[in-house]
């Protein structure tokens, strides 16, 4: 089975990711993980997340991908034993000491090598394989040929990023943040200097920001190359982003498996994902070295949108009334779309909105207010309502 692997910054996101079709999630604990300033998981939350996932036949991987300084070793061994006791399915590690420690102490934890280790060739993969690594998250710079060769030479489980933000540098090979902000990039404090503007004497301003990664056009090829796990970036992202990205790739992977994927589906998926991320995305390194086309030069060119309108809390099948938690402004007359993991996406025009005081109103303009609306097609809890901006019928 090819795994769809989602990011989860907290327990709520973990549940949404799995509900929307991820086979596994990766999460960070409160120590020893990059994204030090994300909310991250306490041991208690990790335990809850693992239980939730395992009950559904899904997996949880925990990032322990810090580059250690002398002072960081304290508590590490106990933490690893705790992760093992909790029953996490693997740890994602980049520091060789941690790999060695797990191996030497015989801590029953499967080891996945982090992309921070920058593996691009079969010999590097073999080296880590000899240390007991079961899976390698390849460097984002891996080409189709690199992936094929590593798979052929090692037979290791391979995990590749398919979607999300990119470092401009090779992961882990950057301390610009340390110099400019004193925040340690390799211990989770990255200030994303590669997204800043720089001046050049006598020339236009300089920027090196990469566009996002988006592998929609190459998913089938990646599977053929021997990739076992398709990974989405974004532990800091919200539930709407995670739900949209995961359900899009889930459907695409299922269509590939059933051999029903059409060109129309691919284009629609690309448009949905670009809209959802607020910025452009491209396949980056898979088939060629990224050129100026894969970068931004005049700011991030992000267009913020408020497409996420509401979260379904309940649906009364008899009355055909949905109860929604409002997330962004909408009004009577708007054309909206409902999507969910078990739902064929459909659109409709809003005719009525009823607020918590059971009054009919023309607009939903209070954040998180609970409203009710008539919706003919059945919905499930945790389906989502978004503004309709892309019409699949108009593609091709």
């Amino acid at each position: 089975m090819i795994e769809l692997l989602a990011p989860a910054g907290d327990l709520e996101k973990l549940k949404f990711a799995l509900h929307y079709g991820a086979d596994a999630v990766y999460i960070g604990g409160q120590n020893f993980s990059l994204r030090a300033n994300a909310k991250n998981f306490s041991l208690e939350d990790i335990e809850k997340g693992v239980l939730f996932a395992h009950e559904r036949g899904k997996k949880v991987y925990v990032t322990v991908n810090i580059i250690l300084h002398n002072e960081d070793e304290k508590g590490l061994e106990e933490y690893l034993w705790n992760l093992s006791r909790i029953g996490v399915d693997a740890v994602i590690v980049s520091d060789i000491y941690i790999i060695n420690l797990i191996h030497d102490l015989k801590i029953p934890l499967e080891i996945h090598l982090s992309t921070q280790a920058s593996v691009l060739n079969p010999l590097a993969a073999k080296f880590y394989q000899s240390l007991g690594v079961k899976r390698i998250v390849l460097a984002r710079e891996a080409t189709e040929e690199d992936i094929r060769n590593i798979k052929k030479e090692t037979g290791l489980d391979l995990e590749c990023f398919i979607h999300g933000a990119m470092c401009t540098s090779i992961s882990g090979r950057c301390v610009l943040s340390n110099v400019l902000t004193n925040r340690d990039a390799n211990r989770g404090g990255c200030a994303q200097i590669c997204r800043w503007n720089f001046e050049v004497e006598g020339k236009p301003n300089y920027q090196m920001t990469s566009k996002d990664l988006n592998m929609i056009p190459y998913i089938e090829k990646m599977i053929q190359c021997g990739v076992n796990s398709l990974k989405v970036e974004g532990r800091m992202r919200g539930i709407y982003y995670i739900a949209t990205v995961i359900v899009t790739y889930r459907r695409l992977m299922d269509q590939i498996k059933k051999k029903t994927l059409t060109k129309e589906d691919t284009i629609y998926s690309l448009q949905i994902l670009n809209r959802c991320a607020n910025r452009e995305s491209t396949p980056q390194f898979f088939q060629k070295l990224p050129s100026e086309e894969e970068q931004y030069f005049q700011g991030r060119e992000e267009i913020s949108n408020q497409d996420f309108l509401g979260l379904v809390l309940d649906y009364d099948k008899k009355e055909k009334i949905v109860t929604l938690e409002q997330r962004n402004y909408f009004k009577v007359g708007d054309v909206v779309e409902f999507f969910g993991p078990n739902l064929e996406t459909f659109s409709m025009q809003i005719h009525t909105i009823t607020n918590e005081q059971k009054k009919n109103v023309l607009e939903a303009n209070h954040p998180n207010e609970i409203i009710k609306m008539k919706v003919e097609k059945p919905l499930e809890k945790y389906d989502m309502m978004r503004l309709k901006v892309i019409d699949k019928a108009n593609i091709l």
Partner: protein
Amino acid sequence: MKNKYFIIPKKKEEKMENVEFLYPLQGFCVGFLKEFSIEEITEEDYIYVNRILDTEGILALKKILDSNKIKGIVFEDLGIVELLKDKKIKKIFYATHATCSKFTAQTYLKYVDYVILSLDITQEEIKEIIEYLPNSIGLFTYGLMPLMYSRRTLIKNYEVHYNLEETNDLWIEEPNTKEQFYLIQNEYGTVIYDSKKYDGRELLNLEGVAFHLLNLQWDNYEKIQDFLKSFETEKSLENWDGFLHQKTIYRLPPKG
């Protein structure tokens, strides 16, 4: 000279006591003014391979090492450990930003002869590591400090986008801090250096350091001996001491 040095020179140098010359190998390095072809390298020399190698790269390196003798190699890609398993040459691992603890360094030392510590650690941390692993650790002590390595051709992309004349290096400035950075690129990627030269000569007094690595590619000197003499005896005037006395943080203080 009281210390042992590894020196990255800008031209081929004659053998010197207490000095090993480290030559960036043409086609296998990013971020140098001058690279050296394998024909220029002798069996007395060390080569430097700082690229993260793709499949094609590591196979090309294998071919070179199978048919040429060298004294040793400094490298960042751990595939090279596997490649050199049965070769009797000195192996020195230098991950510019990934060997920051005594525990990590000790683990790498199971597979290589020496480890060069990463650049983003303090003098206190360095001292602790050297005491823990005496005579096994090299230190980068002088030269432009590499701050970022990208596989992308970041200068070319900028110049193509703005239709500028093509170059291989570029100076950029962060407008708020006025910090300047120096970019240098070849077909294998781009390295961003801090514009100020890093000068860690205070580390020369540490006991138990296996060697000091100096990158002299951007220095003007007549004779290396003269440079080293002044490096060992004179105080640094205007250079930068990197992170030696600047501990980085990774958790932001709570807001409010």
